[in-house]
């Protein structure tokens, strides 16, 4: 998985030394040996211990389970979980590595637990946010009311590289643009969840959520049962239902396919997994042909009409006639077929407009504009470099900020103020002044840590590591959030980078009924 996820600076995490901070205490001494001997607390929110160093109630049973587990038994379960991942072929592709290129996705044995109350708030917040963002896309690609009323500046929209003029005036089924979203959340020091970014184009990772649940149920069946975890296994059915509900009119028994860039894509495992789980055909661009603006797939029994395409190919590569002419991943003429209303694409074209890093700053305003409500999940504070006042503020405080290029991901084009040289800051000043639309600044974030099992089979210990949370939101005839999501872990000590290509892993996320 190498999505444009939150590639946060490595450095920021190393900042505050442990203990000696305000009211924070160390781990209670009666835990201070055995598996917890390397545990530490500081001002970052700890998912397992509260600010007094007490175990949070919903983690007690889990911690007890692990503390009572002999080392050999733990190693045995870890080993059988490893084998289960390997034989299922749960791998991701590492680019630029000539040998092999497939690796087992790293995972952690300790689930992350979210209480029912915490989740209900997250769920409401996500539904609110996605509903508003979808209304925004519908508005911008049609009437443009929000632009006329001045709540979002036109320059931001029209200068976004993911804004698709081709989408103007196109009626999409049920007015749903974003059928699938993965929104990245962080929990800050005060315990509140904030939205770091929305992935509205082709979010990935959901197969890891589903497979690690299966493995965890096998590894810790009794613990799982006692916790009354909300199920997530219906994700493929929910997704299939949503895709079916978005079929073009007059196609009551739609043929749905999943379009993959192919075997060399980093998320290819996920594409095969989802296709199999939903029972739909997995197609590549070369399997599809367009005739009279109708999409067909090539089968051994002739051409078969396709009605809905769950596409895991980016806008830019999906139709060489409409977009990148040198792309061989897409299908020539697909965009015209789409505009003719003969096929549905999920997600729609041009949804990347609404996850632009500069537009992100306007999402609270967008929510208020369309829904007349305050956002339930706040944003991270963001300074727009196009605004002279905010820019001035950023220039004066560059040392404590993180500057990001709006079009980049994967940690490129980024300045980490706290760990930059004078020359680097001067260079970024120049870059920002030359193209202010291309940059935003955010404060350096400290986000929560969750207990993880480290040290391998011989010397296991439970240590805190930084985690984020990516829940998946499905939008068909209604908005559904599958309880949980992908908790990504920065497995290296002190690291804030949760991306799997850079030492990140995942863990199962248990959302409790209560």
């Amino acid at each position, binding site marked *: 998985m190498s999505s444009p996820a939150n590639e946060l600076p490595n450095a920021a995490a190393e900042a505050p030394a442990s203990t000696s901070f305000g009211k924070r205490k160390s781990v209670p001494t009666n835990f201070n040996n055995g598996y917890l001997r390397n545990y530490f607390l500081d001002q970052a929110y700890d998912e397992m211990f509260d600010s007094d160093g007490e175990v949070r109630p919903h983690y007690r049973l889990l911690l007890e389970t692990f503390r009572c587990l002999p080392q050999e038994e733990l190693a045995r379960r870890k080993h059988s979980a490893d084998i289960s991942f390997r*034989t*299922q*072929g749960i791998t991701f592709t590492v680019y630029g590595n000539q040998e092999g290129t497939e690796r087992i996705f790293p995972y952690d044995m300790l689930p992350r637990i979210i209480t029912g109350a915490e989740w209900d708030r997250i769920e409401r917040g996500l539904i609110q946010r996605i509903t508003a963002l979808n209304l925004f896309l519908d508005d911008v690609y049609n009437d443009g009311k929000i632009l006329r009323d001045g709540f979002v500046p036109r320059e931001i929209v029209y200068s976004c590289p993911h804004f698709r003029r081709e989408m103007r005036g196109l009626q999409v089924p049920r007015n749903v643009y974003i059928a699938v979203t993965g929104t990245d959340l962080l929990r800050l020091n005060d315990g509140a969840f904030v939205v770091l970014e929305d992935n509205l184009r082709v979010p990935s990772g959901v197969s890891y959520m589903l497979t690690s649940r299966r493995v965890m149920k096998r590894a810790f069946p009794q613990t799982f049962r006692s916790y009354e975890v909300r199920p997530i296994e219906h994700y493929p059915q929910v997704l299939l239902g949503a895709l079916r509900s978005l079929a073009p009119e007059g196609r009551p028994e739609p043929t749905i396919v999943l379009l993959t860039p*192919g*075997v060399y894509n980093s998320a290819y495992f996920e594409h*095969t997994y989802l*296709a*199999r789980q939903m029972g739909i*055909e*997995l*197609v*590549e661009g*070369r*399997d599809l*042909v367009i*005739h009279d603006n109708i999409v*067909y*797939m*090539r*089968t*051994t*029994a*002739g*051409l*078969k*009409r396709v009605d809905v395409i769950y596409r895991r190919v980016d806008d830019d590569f999906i139709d060489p006639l409409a977009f990148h002419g040198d792309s061989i991943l897409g299908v020539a003429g697909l965009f015209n077929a789409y505009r003719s209303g003969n096929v549905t694409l999920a997600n729609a074209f041009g949804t990347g407009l609404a996850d632009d890093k500069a537009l992100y700053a306007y999402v609270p305003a967008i929510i208020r504009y369309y829904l007349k409500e305050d956002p339930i999940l706040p944003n991270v504070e963001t300074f727009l470099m196009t605004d002279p006042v905010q820019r001035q503020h950023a220039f004066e405080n560059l040392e404590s900020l993180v500057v990001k290029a709006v079009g980049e991901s994967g940690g490129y084009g980024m300045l980490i103020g706290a760990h930059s040289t004078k020359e680097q800051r001067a260079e970024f000043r120049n870059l920002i002044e030359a193209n202010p639309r291309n940059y935003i600044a955010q404060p350096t974030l400290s986000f929560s840590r969750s207990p993880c099992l480290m040290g391998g089979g011989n010397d296991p210990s439970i240590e805190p590591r930084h985690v984020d949370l990516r829940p998946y939101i499905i939008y068909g005839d209604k908005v559904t959030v599958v309880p949980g999501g992908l908790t990504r872990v920065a497995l290296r000590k002190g690291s804030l980078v949760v991306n799997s290509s850079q030492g990140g892993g995942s863990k199962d996320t248990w959302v409790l009924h209560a």
Partner: protein
Amino acid sequence: MLSRVADSLYWMSRYLERAEHTVRMLDVNLSMTLDPSSTSEEGRWKRVLAALGNPEGLEWNGDFYGLAHALAFERDNCASITGCITAARENARQVREEITSEQWQQLNRMYHRVTDEAPEKGHRLDEFPAATLDDLHLFQGATDSSMSHGEGWHFIQIGRAIERATAIATLIGVFEWDASESISEGAGSQQFLEWIGLLRCCTAFESYCNLYTADLTQPQILRFLLLNKEFPHSVRYSIDQLRWALLALQEGSGRLVAEEISRVAGRMQASLNFCEISEVVHHGVGAYVQNITHQCRHIHALIYRDYIQYKVHVALPQ
């Protein structure tokens, strides 16, 4: 079934069959190189290369051990055994949702074993063929017992049958056939060993002896390898299999009726079923087997034309 999927299954199967044939060729000829022989080392290994269709990048340069290594381990050459298995796995990887986990895991295991056994890692050539044959047989078993015998399975059968018929026909073609000569162990034991070698390359020696006893004559060997009805490595058996799989495919895929494939395959099957070995010898063995490989190529092209790379206008739904 998607055409691309059918294509990948077909080639996965062909590559595995090719790997199996090459393993056997390698194994038999390595052991025959140990015995004194009427055939020179050079003649033997050039004949091996000819039987494999003179693959690019593999040449006789005086060192049979080097050539054998290249045939076994050279991963970048898709005619080598490791190359074939790599290519088969690559095809399987692209249709992973279409094959069973049993198949995938066995193929994956085999791939990791052969690529791990490269000579620089200290593994030996003499253990390689037997282990690889075992792996290939396991895959075949997993395929037959875990996969639905539907369209995908039929494409696998077709790939294997075409590859096998072509390989056996080509192998027969590189030998000199002379109907008048009978081979006895007393007369020329070296000559005798060559013919046993040929049978072993087709895993046919034991089955041949069951039918004809160890009495080797050229017409009987030829009849057994070309026309035997029951032996799975005979050309006739492979073409029978091919024909049944093509028929099953036509029934299954409904709208497309591939008349021409049916005619060409049926004619070839009939010619093998109703042929007398003396006629083959009379008209020349070389020409006969060449005609078989030619027809196999023709059927391959027709499968592509009708099932995989058809023109859009002929296949639009009515």
